[in-house]
């Protein structure tokens, strides 16, 4: 998009400010109630800046907001910023809305924005930041962050990434904080999201969302079928669909990828992982909730050295996928052995590249298209992702599986937000079209209560 187009787009949307949601009338959406859910994903921490955090893929939208958001046409509009960045000489100034307070009661200013961006840069999940000078806090206005660049579009696009969502200084993934609709209280087996009255874009309709960690894929379905929870993950019941359950499919919250490392030798070369996963027989993966799967082609055989197929502990869905992949790909002398590791250890190995194979999640960095390539590339190498941002390749297709043919990872499928929910619940789809929006979800009013 040309800069002029961007500016015109911004001018058109400026008046709307942070407004994204429509105004409802009729009966007002009822406030209150609880959503109970059982998920086969880890719940111990949420880090919006972590590109490969599956918990953030599912819940970061509810706890933190980007400074600029994207509308349905992929045009940015101010969400936590007061307005569009102002140019002063060679400096681009971004001013935050006054009065922003985090869910845990911390007043937010430009120091928090500088902290957020520095952290996101360090985590490697925001390649666009690598091309931006480090911002500084304005000496005259604590709400203003100064960027030593005249490229306002670049600043806005960097601040519209989900991985640069504003978090307060001292942010901790185990005590996450932000301006989102809910406050998160993570735990090993249970995550509670509580309505955030300080929410900068509106508190959630629900009082809270209680997420229990499911030990396996069937536990979530069993709980839903037994009316213990409100959402069935990947289905409407284990043995039989729950009566009056409402099916939903809100698209992907991320990709589930197989990444190869240096210990794979020649089998860790770019494109190998994608060739392997494209050969997987789809009928053996259908039950794993991976979204649409391609027609298999090639031979699904691991020829690299035997060793662990790593995945994050506490992730029953990844464990199930890892077991399935290992059973399909392993051959005598070339066994892949599923092995859970802590998130920190996985991160360390991913950054060093010293592993054999790893199954993990990559979050989208924007609407489908170039952003998909940037995200998948950044999961392997954020510098390479920066090259993609600087010199976007001319591709005939941005289908993720074709994008990864030059990367050391292959897209196994999607982390798809799909299943069924109770009839008295209204789950909201994310404004971007992919994933859910728990802040906008609500329970139907109890007539005559």
């Amino acid at each position, binding site marked *: 998009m040309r800069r002029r187009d961007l500016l015109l787009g911004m001018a058109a949307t400026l008046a*709307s400010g942070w407004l994204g949601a429509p105004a409802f009338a009729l009966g007002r959406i009822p406030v209150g109630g609880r959503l109970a859910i059982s998920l086969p994903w880890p719940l111990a921490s949420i880090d919006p800046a972590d590109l490969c955090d599956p918990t953030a893929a599912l819940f970061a939208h509810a706890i933190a907001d980007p400074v600029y958001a994207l509308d349905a046409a992929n045009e940015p509009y101010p969400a936590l910023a*007061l307005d569009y960045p102002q140019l002063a000489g060679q400096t681009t100034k971004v001013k935050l809305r006054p009065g922003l307070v985090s869910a845990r009661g911390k007043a937010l200013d430009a120091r928090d924005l500088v902290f957020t961006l520095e952290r996101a840069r360090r985590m490697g999940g925001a390649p666009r930041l690598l091309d931006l000078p480090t911002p500084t806090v304005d000496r005259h206005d604590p709400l203003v962050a100064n960027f030593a660049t005249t490229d306002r579009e670049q600043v806005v696009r960097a601040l519209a990434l989900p991985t640069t969502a504003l978090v307060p200084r001292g942010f901790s993934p185990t005590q996450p904080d932000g301006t989102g609709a809910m406050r998160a209280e993570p735990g090993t087996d249970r995550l509670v999201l509580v309505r955030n009255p300080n929410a900068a874009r*509106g*508190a959630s309709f629900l009082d809270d969302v209680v997420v229990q960690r499911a030990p396996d894929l069937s536990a979530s379905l069993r709980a839903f079928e037994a009316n213990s929870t409100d959402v069935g993950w990947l289905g409407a019941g284990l043995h039989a669909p729950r009566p009056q359950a409402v099916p939903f499919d809100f698209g992907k919250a991320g990709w589930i990828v197989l990444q190869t490392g240096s210990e794979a030798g020649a089998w860790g070369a770019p494109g190998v992982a994608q060739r392997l996963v494209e050969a997987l027989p789809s009928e053996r993966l259908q039950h794993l909730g991976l979204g649409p799967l391609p027609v298999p082609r090639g031979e699904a055989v691991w020829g690299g050295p035997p060793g662990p197929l790593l995945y994050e502990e506490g992730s029953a869905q990844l464990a199930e996928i890892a077991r399935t992949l290992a059973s399909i790909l392993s051959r005598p002398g070339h066994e892949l052995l599923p092995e859970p590791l802590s998130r920190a250890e996985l991160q360390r190995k991913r950054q060093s590249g010293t592993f054999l194979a790893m199954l993990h999640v990559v979050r989208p960095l924007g609407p489908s298209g170039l952003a998909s390539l940037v995200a998948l590339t950044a999961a392997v190498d954020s510098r390479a992702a920066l090259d993609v941002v600087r010199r976007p390749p001319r591709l005939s297709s941005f289908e993720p599986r074709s994008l990864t043919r030059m990367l050391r990872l292959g897209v196994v499928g999607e982390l798809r937000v799909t299943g069924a929910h109770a009839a008295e619940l209204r789950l909201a789809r994310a404004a971007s079209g992919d994933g859910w929006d728990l802040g906008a979800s609500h329970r139907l009013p109890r*007539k005559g209560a």
Partner: protein
Amino acid sequence: MTLRHWLGALASLGVLGISSAAFADPALPTRASAMATVAERLSKELAGAPPAGVVVAAPLRTDESAPRGDELVVRLGQVVGGALGASLARPEPLALPAARSAARRADAFVYVQAEVLRGELRVSADVYPSPQGFWERLLRPNPSPIRHAFASARLDAEVRGFLAPVPLVMGQIDRAKTEDRDVVALACGDLDADGALDLVTLGRRRIARGRLRGGRFETSHAIEWSALSPIAPAPLREPMAGVAILSGTWPSGAFVDVGLTDRASGMRLDRTLRPVKPIEGVPVSFGDRDVCATYAPSETTPTFARCSQDDPQLELAPLSNPTDIVTIEALTTRSAGSLAIWAARNPQTGELRLVANGFGTTIAGVGAQVAIADLDTDGIPEIISSADVLSPSEDALVVHSWRPGEAAQERARIPVPQGVRAIAVCPPEGAGASPIAVATAGAEIWVVR
């Protein structure tokens, strides 16, 4: 406040869930009757005129049937006479020559000419000297008036009692397109006291004043929210909004109070929508004035206070039951009394609790848009609302009549398949019922007559 009113207020508060012990002197909305309003304004304008011993009314001029027109003007003459301190009001309407003759013994007399035109009671009062003595009567038999005054007021139940009754038939719908697609509140009134009705639309981006012409909402004045107030640090996800027209007189005209929970503060605007001063909260009509409701994301009920520090003090205790919409209105009864009605909607049940004169009732299935008015000026309030549905296609404009002490009766239900976004009742503008203005989710304004 009379004891009866006071006891009525206490009982009303109890039914609504308000603790009566919370305050000693509950405020009641009041609305002066049309005759009292006219008489007060005439007396103000005629202040300093020679004392008039007699008030004589002229025969009524009207554009609608007035079977008791003579009684009306005589009663009006008595009220005006009382306000002016006149000792006598003639018991029959007289033409001016006959009035001169009838008042010849007084030094001066006031000749009151009333007309009922386009829903207004328009009254002029002329002070005539009575020639004293033979020569004066011979030389100046028909002296010109020495003072003139004019006042008008919209018809109310007291005046309507002298005219032909109005059938509550709402068969005509005028639709007009509006460029504001996000209207969340609406008001209707005579902003510049020129006799013609204006509509004020409050959207999430701007406030507009205009009239319906040729199937379009023709904007005469508009102002962007961004020019009035910054975005609220913690707005509601689903906004609450209010517009209240504070009646005024020529030449200053009316003021318009606007409030929207998206914004940090509301604003009092003049009749051309220029900012006058900030107000705190969402304005809610309160008889002749307004109060402001403040909605906190963490609270289930709003709190009330005067909108501006310059407004008269007002004590309203908090509601104890979950409440989102509160409407408070005062109507003139046939006996010229003021009937205060309180309405509070429980968002969890969709029930609207109504209280007046110590009587209470409940209407089920009420949506988030509620207005109270005396549509047919019979002294019995009508409750106009949207339906408690979450699908626009099921929405409707619903009219109930409620005589305190009895059950509310549904009088009309008009489907609004685009969904109702806002409702306002216009003052009477002719021989029919008061028009109802509806902003729909389809960027239309309907005027239902």
